[in-house]
């Protein structure tokens, strides 16, 4: 049997695909990353028989799904079969199976029916399908030998489900004709859930069990309730609701605001004396700082950088300063180069702009954390004044002693109690991963290979080009939002193949599936059957992402 390296790399993908099928069946996937890790472990321990039975399951399940999905499944099947012949210890696999099952159930929102994911034995699957009709969400938690917990909604009776479930498990085990003894060692309810990637949760030799016990002994006492009990709310719904919620302590907050505003003159004085100001305390400081900054803007240019911005590129911001404030055109070089260029300009005696104020909201923002040295170089210049705000409680840790000396901070408590509307606007309130923001995309890309990134880049560049064309062609952009630029699947594949990024359609498919799992790329079938893929982000954001990928 062919068990080349290529196949090995493929198996995780196919397993992922199994998962994605499940998702397509109406289950919501909550944490895709976690799912992937889990499957990597699963597949390492899979055996031929297991693999095949899994595939048949998939195929069965796949029947319910559309044609395209079926096609994918069979692809995986070939991928999986190629692993056949690898000898893996049976008892290990068994445990992994239980583990996987728990993980998969937990992995979704449990909004609708349950499926034992590819890993589950056929009997479990049957049951799962019957359960599906009940529309009951179920949790499978296999526990140490005697205890196996299943939770069906709130009214589910624990004692009943326990016995029933144990029955299931043992039935499944005997069906496979393997011993129970080695099975489920150290797989406690929470631990089975607990698919942290430290690898301790494997079953195995005694010394490994030591660590399992070590970890299971401090099992958390939290309940197994999930947010799936609440109705899902979309981002826009959230915003609509929150906009209507009346603010608490309005009068007090106004007073606080007034008191803070009285300090404007003092801040001004301190800035003039050569201190840079940093503001901390609970509540959004954006509004106050912006209004202070607009006051300063009467006399000198003020640059406002929103550090909370998820795809903030400091290089861009500095380039903007060079072009608009200093009115130079040469903006080559790294962030450090630009910083020293700006520093040099504002230290030189022959400058046309005398001084500049830099307002950095959230200087502790994720995109600015690695640029503190450059920012401190800017701040060490006497004619550049910096106003910054920090919100993270451990923010001072981002500065070492030389940076902090260069910044020359004077700290001010600016507790406003204002909601962080702008700052958290890029976060996902609902926890629903139907939408992935630019930050998410960056995150996914960071963990991918160069090839995969280039595959992403091809589509992104295509979309950017298209969107520019769109802008150029139709000036009235009223309904244009609904129609995002899409790329035909075949063209996309051809483009990737031309660049030697993929060798076969199968590799391309699996790569695409990975992107699709992470909601980075979405696909759509046109009425004529052709498949279109696109990244659900607009051209500008894509441009920023591409730049920060370098």
């Amino acid at each position, binding site marked *: 049997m062919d068990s080349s390296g290529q196949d090995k790399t493929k198996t995780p993908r196919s397993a992922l695909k199994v998962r994605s099928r499940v998702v397509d069946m109406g289950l919501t996937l909550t944490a895709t990353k976690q799912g992937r890790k889990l499957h990597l472990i699963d597949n390492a321990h899979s055996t031929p028989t297991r693999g095949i039975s899994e595939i048949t399951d998939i195929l069965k399940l796949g029947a319910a799904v559309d044609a395209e999905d079926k096609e994918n499944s069979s692809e995986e099947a070939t991928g999986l079969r190629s692993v056949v012949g690898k000898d893996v210890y049976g008892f290990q696999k068994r445990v992994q199976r239980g583990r996987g099952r728990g993980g998969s159930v937990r992995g979704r929102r449990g909004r609708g029916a349950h499926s034992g994911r590819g890993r589950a034995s056929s009997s479990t699957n049957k049951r799962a399908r019957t359960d599906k009709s009940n529309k009951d969400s179920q949790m499978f938690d296999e526990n140490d030998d005697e205890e196996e917990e299943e939770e069906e909604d709130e009214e589910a009776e624990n004692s009943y489900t326990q016995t029933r479930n144990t029955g299931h498990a043992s039935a499944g085990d005997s069906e496979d004709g393997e011993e129970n003894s080695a099975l489920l060692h150290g797989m406690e309810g929470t631990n089975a859930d607990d698919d*942290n990637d430290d690898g301790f949760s494997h079953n195995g030799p005694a010394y490994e069990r030591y660590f399992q016990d070590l970890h299971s002994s401090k099992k958390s006492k939290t309940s197994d*309730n999930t947010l799936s009990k609440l109705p899902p709310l979309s981002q826009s719904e959230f915003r609509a609701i*929150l906009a209507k919620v009346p603010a608490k302590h309005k009068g007090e907050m106004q007073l606080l605001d007034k008191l803070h505003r009285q300090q404007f*003159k003092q801040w001004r004085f301190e800035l003039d004396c050569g201190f840079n100001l940093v503001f901390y*305390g609970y509540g959004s400081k954006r509004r106050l700082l912006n209004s202070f900054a607009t006051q300063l803007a009467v006399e000198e240019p003020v640059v406002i950088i929103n550090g909370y911005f998820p795809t903030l590129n400091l290089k861009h911001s500095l380039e903007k300063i060079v072009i608009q404030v200093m009115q130079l055109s040469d903006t080559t070089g790294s962030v450090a180069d630009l910083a020293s260029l700006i520093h040099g300009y504002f230290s030189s005696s022959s400058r046309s702009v005398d001084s500049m104020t830099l307002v950095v909201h959230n200087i502790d923002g994720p995109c600015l954390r690695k640029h503190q040295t450059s920012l401190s170089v800017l701040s060490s210049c006497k004619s550049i004044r910096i106003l910054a705000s920090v919100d993270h409680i451990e923010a001072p840790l981002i500065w070492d002693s030389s940076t902090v*000396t260069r910044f020359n901070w004077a*700290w001010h408590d600016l*507790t406003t109690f204002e909601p962080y509307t702008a700052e958290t606007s890029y976060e996902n309130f609902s926890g629903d991963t139907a939408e992935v923001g630019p930050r998410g995309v960056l995150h996914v890309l960071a963990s991918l290979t160069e090839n995969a990134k280039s595959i992403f880049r091809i589509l992104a560049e295509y979309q950017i080009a298209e969107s520019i064309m769109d802008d150029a062609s139709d000036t009235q952009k009223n309904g244009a939002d609904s129609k995002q630029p899409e790329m035909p699947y075949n063209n996309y594949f051809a483009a990737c193949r031309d660049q030697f990024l993929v060798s076969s359609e199968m590799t391309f498919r699996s790569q695409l599936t990975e992107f699709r799992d992470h909601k980075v790329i979405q696909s759509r079938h046109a009425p004529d059957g052709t498949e279109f893929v696109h990244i659900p982000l607009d051209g500008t954001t894509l441009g920023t992402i591409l730049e920060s990928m370098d």
Partner: protein
Amino acid sequence: MVDAYKPLDELDSVTESTFILMPQQKNGRSKGNTTTSAQRKKPMTASDYGYVQLLQGKEPTESMELRKQLFESTWNPLEKHLMDTEHKVNNAGIIEVSKFVDTSYTTIELKEKGQLSRPFAEIATAVTFAGVNTGDHTKLFESLQSQLTANGHYIALLESQYCTTLPNMLKSMLEQLYTSIHARLDLEAAQGLNTGATAKSIAYDMGLLHIWWNAIEARSSTGSRIVIILQDFEGFPPMVIDDFVRIATGYCHTVPIVLVFGLATSYECIHQSLTKSSISMLNVERFNLQRSKQCIDSAIYSLFVQSTSILTFGAEAYKSLMDQFLLYDFSITGFVKKLKYAIMDFFYSQPLSILAAMVKMESNDSCKHGVISEFPIRLTHDQIELIRMQKSVRLFLEQQLQKTKDQQRFRQAISSDEFFQEAVLPVMMRQLASYRQGYCLGIDMLLAIQSMSPESLQKPIRTLHYYGLSQTFSDCMNWKTLFAVMRRMKAPEMKQLLLKLQLSITNLGEIDWEFAAKDSLDIPALLLQASKLLEDPEESSKEDTEANSSEQKKRIRTRTDMESRPFLLFDNESSDQILRALDKCCGIVETILSACLQPYQTAPLYEIFYYRHSFLLDTTFSAQPRAAVQTALGRTEYYINCDCCTGKSQSKSNAADASIAGGDGHSSDESSDEDDGYRVMSSMHDTSIAYRLHQECGRLINLYDWYSAFSSVVEKEDERSCSASGQSEVQARFMRAVEEMRYLGFVKSTQRKTDHVVRLTWGA
């Protein structure tokens, strides 16, 4: 569009992260959407650098202007003085290093033109230990650079942030050397340099350096060196330095390269970061440039003890200043920063800081007898009243009354503003100045005594000054130890000491003895008396009665005497008279010191001129953002003084304490003991509710249970306000609160269990 988020205002956008507001006249070039905001802004009040009129706005503008002037005229010389001090202290080390650079390679003769022949390829390297105060290093190495430049060397000062890779490092180095060479040699000589350097895409290579050096040599062989300073050695990637050393070795036969490494940690780190083979190419000599303690000592002596600075620090503020220095990073920059901020605060927010105008003029005129000049402007009634209200001023007036019994004068001082300003205020200011002179004399004398005592008892000036500020004379153990040392002195030593003391008086110049020490002690006369006693012990002892002398004999034999004056047993040479004279001298010195080192609280107007706002300094420079956020969320009343959250009417809200899973008896304890402060109220901010609930949880928090607890708190709000907020509103508010908590860093999401977050902070 994926994100349906609507930007809050023109400075927030989904696609744009940077906005530039240009001043109005340049609006044409700035972005369109910024134009509107630029028009809306109000002009700042002119001629006012942020100063405000104090005393509820009743302060006249001219006093405000005066404060501004005074700040500038106080701080600017002070800053210069501090920089000079730092420079002076650092200079010794710098000269050592530059001497090393000058003399390096001198043993090797110049064999032929441009060819230095050396037996080994070793690069002369100065390893300088500059201390942990990395913030000060820039200044230190810059002065080293200017010193070396003055000695005719070519310098490249490299910082690790620009030297992440070898090409970057070479680029940075060669650019600096090029400018340095270019500046030295005239254009004609620099011709050779221009060949490569002006081109845009120049290959930065050590070969260039070789060419340049040949050009320099062709012009003049002055024995200058190429000095490359790595300011923060620890920050450089070890491989980069390693490679650089190897490359430099290849050229050191032709180009005299000297390396200077600046270390902040220890000499060991060179061995840790460089490979053995490259260390063997270095000819290392060590230097210690860490001088920040000496620097701070001399700064404190001149600023606070000798009162160069108008403003001095009270005990508490001084302690915070010193703690920051000694326990944190030995950073002089930090010290100067705090001092500057204190002076800024003094002239910005202390309405009486205008009184400094009187002191300033005195030092300008260098008048004798410390005449305090007239106040330049007439003080308003409010200002005078404020001065009268100071505790020390009242004490001063009462003392005057007791002394002079002049009721008329006393009444006038209280009632007439004019009289107060013209007759009372200068006296008080003069007295304060004299007190500070006396204090300085006291510290000087202590230093003199200390210099003659064993080294283990010697304390730095900063500590002596702290004792002087914080402790009364009789309580201070340190003084007692010093006096014990003094009592063991023999006659010649005592003579020496008295000479030193007299010297310190003459060093101090004119002193108004009336106010310098307590009870107007005539210190010079006392010292004179003491030295007379020593010179002529017999004569003075004549005054003593016989009873006294017999007692003296006995006293030597007593046990207590053995403890307090053990030397008497061994010292047979000194006669009783001498001993008695010594004893008297010690007594005199002690009296003098106790009169000089009065606590500063006895001086008039000390409330104004001894800075007390240590809290302000601490919050401004050692801020604790985490504590502030936690207070805002957990003890909201500190920020919002509202009636609704104090919980007076909330007897029924036990359910509010509904703990989430994992919550134990903790919450019930609190609600019984100090219920009001800890109860979670529906009227609180959402995030505050979520924060308080999360404090009851363990490491993992189940979001759903958290939500349940949250909604049980929030729902009570509806009972009262009768606004039907749906479940989804509660859910949305909860999610927002959790999101904010995540944003602030209190919790983070986890994969360990579905819909759980991990708690990251512990404690209140």
